[in-house]
């Protein structure tokens, strides 16, 4: 598919690609959403169709905007932590970690070893959870009547049980604190995690047997929604979408935050950057996460999980600014804080990966049919809580 001529941001006027006039039936303006069954939440696409193919696509969102960043300025540093669970409500642990990382770099607190190991374990479990659900939603958009999604949710439930027995809540964990973690792993938790990770490889093999070789899935996703590496880089796309386009950029290797240099794992790269590559890169990343989890669960030391000097209430950060970022399952999730020494941050900014990955939706969908736009949206993996904040 040729790189669409429309510049990165679609120009104000209607960007209609040249369509042969002789067959130019009237363009059909179709609005999909915000309550469309396949848009992963309240998200709307104003698609202009010429017959089946999309000629212009204008994403409309903001339905789930909750003023997260302005509230962050009014709440104490600790008070914002439970709100970060509500950003990307599928991966609350990684959101917490990114925010904790930002505040720690602001206040310069050290994090004990056991807490670092726990954070890596929880982040990789969240990555497994997110990528399995992504494959399920992608197949649901292709129309597989829910079977892959149910298998994904069956595995997700096991991981959520682990989160619940550790942090108290399945999805709204509110578990990380500045300088470590809130509670230590209860007895038997690490063994249960090891058992789950042990069985995950077998589940992935069965999942891939159902999906990867499936001719219909290959026909529906190969060559669809091709993202050239140049456009991906200039659009600021991060995460599996970027790596599927062939760009080698994984924050765990680039930043080396949180003991990741201690574990050895590989970063899969795609060659075509189409929907099938995005699906496969995530599946291969899951297999790497299993490797990391096994190494971390073997190597986790005993010891304190909270920096003794950490202060819970009345925490005042030194004036200055900091940007903490981690490789979340959807991409680089970052928190930018400006502190003036008070209990509340002066400026609280979230870098949402799925929102930034979403900006190139039109470029991916031009020229494809309406059935493909749904699959392409599914492969971008957006969660409206994070897109609208």
């Amino acid at each position, binding site marked *: 598919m040729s790189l669409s001529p429309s510049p990165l941001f679609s120009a104000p006027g209607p960007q209609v690609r040249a369509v042969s006039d002789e067959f130019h039936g009237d363009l*059909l303006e*179709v609005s999909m959403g915000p309550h*469309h*069954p*396949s848009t992963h939440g309240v998200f709307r696409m104003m698609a202009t*169709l010429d017959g*089946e193919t999309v000629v212009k696509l204008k994403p409309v969102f903001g339905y789930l905007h909750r003023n997260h960043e302005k509230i962050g300025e009014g709440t104490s540093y600790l008070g914002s932590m439970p709100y970060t669970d509500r950003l990307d409500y599928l991966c609350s642990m990684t959101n917490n970690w990114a925010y904790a990382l930002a505040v720690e770099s602001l206040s310069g607190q050290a994090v004990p070893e056991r807490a670092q190991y726990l954070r890596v374990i929880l982040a990789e479990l969240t990555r497994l959870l997110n990528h399995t659900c992504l494959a399920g939603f992608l*197949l*649901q*958009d*292709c*129309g*597989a*009547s*829910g*079977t892959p999604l*149910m*298998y994904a949710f*069956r595995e997700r439930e096991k991981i959520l049980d682990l989160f619940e027995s550790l942090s108290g809540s399945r999805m709204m964990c509110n578990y990380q604190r500045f300088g470590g973690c809130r509670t230590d792993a209860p007895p038997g938790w690490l063994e249960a995690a090891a058992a789950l990770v042990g069985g995950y490889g077998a589940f992935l093999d069965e999942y891939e047997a*159902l999906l*990867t*070789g*499936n*001719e*219909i*899935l*290959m*026909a*529906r996703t*190969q*060559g669809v929604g091709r993202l050239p590496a140049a456009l991906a880089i200039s659009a600021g796309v991060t995460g599996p979408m970027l*790596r599927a386009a062939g760009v*080698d950029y*994984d924050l765990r*290797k680039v930043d080396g935050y949180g003991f990741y240099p201690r574990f050895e794992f*590989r*970063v*899969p*790269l*795609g*060659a*075509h950057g189409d929907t*099938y*590559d995005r699906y*496969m*890169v995530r599946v*291969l990343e899951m297999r790497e996460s299993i490797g990391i989890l096994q190494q971390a669960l073997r190597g986790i030391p005993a010891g304190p999980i909270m920096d003794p000097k950490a202060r819970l209430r009345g925490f005042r950060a030194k004036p200055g600014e900091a940007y903490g970022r981690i490789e979340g399952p959807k991409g680089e999730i970052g928190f930018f804080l400006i502190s003036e020494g008070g209990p509340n941050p002066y400026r609280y900014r979230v870098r949402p990966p799925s929102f930034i990955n979403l900006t190139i939706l039109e470029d991916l969908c031009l020229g494809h*049919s*309406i*059935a*493909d736009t*749904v699959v392409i949206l599914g492969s971008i993996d957006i969660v409206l809580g994070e897109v609208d904040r």
Partner: protein
Amino acid sequence: MIPGAPTGDTLLERAPVLLRDWLVGFLPGPARWAAGSLLMIVAILAVFGTLFAFLTLAERKILARVQNRPGPNRTGWFGLLQPFADGVKMLTKEDIVPRAADPVLHFLAPVALIAFSLLTFAVIPYGRHLVPVDLDSSILYFFAAGTATELAVFMAGWASHNKFALLAAMRALAQLISYELPLLLSVVPVVLATGTLSATGVVAAQSGWKWDLVPRWVVFTPWGAAGFVIFMISALAESNRSPFDLPEAESELIAGHLTEYSGFKYALFFMAEYFGMCALSGMAVTLFLGGWHAPLPLLEFIPSYVWFAVKLLALLLGFIWIRATLPRLRIDQLTRLAWKFLVPLALVNLATAAFWSLSAPWPGPLQLLRWAVALGLVAGPFLLLSRGLTAGLRPRVYRYA
């Protein structure tokens, strides 16, 4: 009535016919024929009505079990009352007709769809003596009634005066028309081999067993198996079942041409889809799986309509199994599959069937050659065309940074 084989005519076999004659016996002469056919209509409606009800339940239960969950089990024992609960729900739901819709067509569409799909049940031979209408060209009648349903789908899409419904109606028509051809072409070899257009004739031609072990069903010949596969794929597409359930693809165009229907009219569309599925499976059993014949001579004591039911349910469960697994095809891939893959294969299948019937009298050892050539004629084009169809589609190998 085809004189049944001497062993096959047990009392149980003729029970339905005896029952009917006894019931009709009360009426005076001329009314007997009318009462008899009325009874038959009631019987078909009752049997396939309940089959439809429990098929929806079976579909939800099997889909659930495939997804490791129990499925509906709250209404009645093991959820057996679920279809009646759905029925009551559908009856009591408000029937909304959009103001801009065309009232006459909007009402006529489901009625026409149900009428045409019910017409097709008249000619399927359910048992040795259970043939509702024995026409000389009943297979042609079956497909004539089948194609008329396209008209009703178009009426539904156009009358709802809704952008989505219109787009979906066009898709549905493209799909139905492009799969009409392979459906009919896969039946032509059967008619060619059995030499008759009447369903009972085809079933009669498939009676008997070779070496008292392998039944002479069409599906056990190379061209028969290929024809059966093509017929089933086209039947999937004709009844809008996954992976061809494009018209009401919920992930794209909400409920396709059914968007503006609610209440019992929606249930009628649902029912018509299932009747279409049952009728096509019934015809597949009749043409390819030896209709009501028992698979083994010693199983002959079981009445013939039981065998028909067993084969029909097997095919229906296959439909549900496929729906639980496969994702959906895009509209252009779907039509490309029909025109560039199924139609050529069906034409080649015609040639194989011709060769098969011509080479029937070959002496002993040449039979192996006959089988080899027939299998080659089936497998060759299949591999050739499938490479063309899936050009460039294969699982990829990924490099690591």
